[in-house]
């Protein structure tokens, strides 16, 4: 099976960013043969929404994003804590800068697949969370960012619909365009709204809930579990991820143990049914912090 957009993306890395190729080779090796079609699908939606130049734009954004993350992790090793501690600090230094955020979102979009440990989480999402969800289910995505996670589910669950709420107008724009590019006209709706104000939504209105890599960006990540417990119908499931001892320019809340996320879920009556904690194949020599990304599937 050919993957022309994936091949074009890889050519870009080979020519311009050879130091990023080895990490991508790690991602390909997580489940051999499975990565390419998923990246091709993500790129197909992106090209449909933004044109072919988005491939080079996304490649550069991914490299910039990965570089920023690696710099933050090296500094975290030296300093022992994340640099930002409040949302206001991060807003001032990053979120208020539209051009920077554009690159940031495309970098994250590709990192879902091109970071080996995130590819692992994406397979877990598809195989263990999305696959059992019934046709026609209604999803709510909390802070979808680029929207890729929810759109992926829409492509696997026949007749499903999704509403996404994000505080960032740029995220709403990108997620909406990507959803249209993915052919989800009428099935995906995004609205500018603070994830912390979701308690005003109709309670028990979602058949499934997705909240990916949001917790660590908040001063009080518990609010997400409270919102999920409010939105989800009894017996239905949510997919929630978080980053642990993984520095990034906009990470605020420093999770150190997997149990911290589990306890937060349980506090709001959510039963943790499955978890996956994954770490990058390549780490700093003699690192005292092992960066991890953790996914939880919770049932109300």
């Amino acid at each position: 099976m050919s993957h022309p957009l994936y091949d074009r993306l890889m050519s870009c890395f080979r020519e311009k960013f050879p130091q990023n190729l080895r990490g991508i080779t790690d991602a390909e090796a997580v489940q051999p043969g499975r990565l390419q079609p998923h990246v091709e699908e993500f790129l197909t939606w992106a090209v449909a929404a933004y044109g072919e130049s988005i491939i080079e734009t996304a490649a550069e954004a991914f490299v910039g994003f990965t570089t920023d993350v690696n710099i933050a992790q090296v500094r975290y090793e030296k300093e022992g804590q994340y640099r930002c501690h409040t949302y206001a600090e991060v807003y001032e230094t990053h979120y208020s800068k539209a051009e920077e955020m554009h690159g940031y979102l495309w970098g994250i979009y590709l990192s879902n697949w091109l970071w080996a440990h995130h590819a692992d989480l994406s397979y877990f999402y598809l195989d263990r969370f999305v696959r059992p969800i019934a046709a026609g289910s209604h999803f709510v995505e909390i802070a979808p960012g680029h929207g890729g996670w929810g759109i992926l589910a829409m492509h696997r669950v026949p007749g499903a619909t999704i509403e996404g709420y994000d505080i960032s107008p740029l995220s709403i724009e990108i997620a909406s365009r990507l959803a249209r590019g993915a052919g989800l006209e009428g099935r995906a709706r995004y609205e500018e709204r603070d994830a912390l104000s979701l308690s005003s939504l109709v309670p028990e209105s979602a058949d499934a809930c997705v909240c990916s890599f949001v917790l660590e960006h908040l001063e009080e990540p518990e609010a997400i579990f409270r919102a999920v417990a409010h939105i989800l119908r009894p017996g239905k499931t949510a997919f929630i991820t978080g980053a642990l001892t993984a520095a990034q320019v906009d990470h605020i809340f420093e999770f150190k143990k997997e149990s911290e996320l589990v306890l937060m879920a349980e506090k709001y009556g959510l039963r943790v049914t499955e978890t996956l904690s994954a770490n990058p194949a390549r780490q700093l020599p003699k690192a005292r912090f092992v960066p991890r990304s953790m996914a939880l599937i919770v049932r109300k």
Partner: protein
Amino acid sequence: MDTLSELQSLFREVFQLDDLVITRGTTAHDIEAWDSLIHVTLMMEVETRFGIRFTTAEIAYLKSVGDLVDLIAKKRPA
């Protein structure tokens, strides 16, 4: 000592390869361990060794040892 020689000793330390020989044309294609994480570690060591600072873009877009030599020359106080 010229910049390339200084870099050679630094590359040997970072990659922990005592017999590593670099040229201006050396890229990540030529050194097995040169991944994005070591790349950042390397560039931060260069910053410390040469007393200069790089932007994220300069770190991300740097392709070869030759590019690094030129960038150091541009950044280093005359």
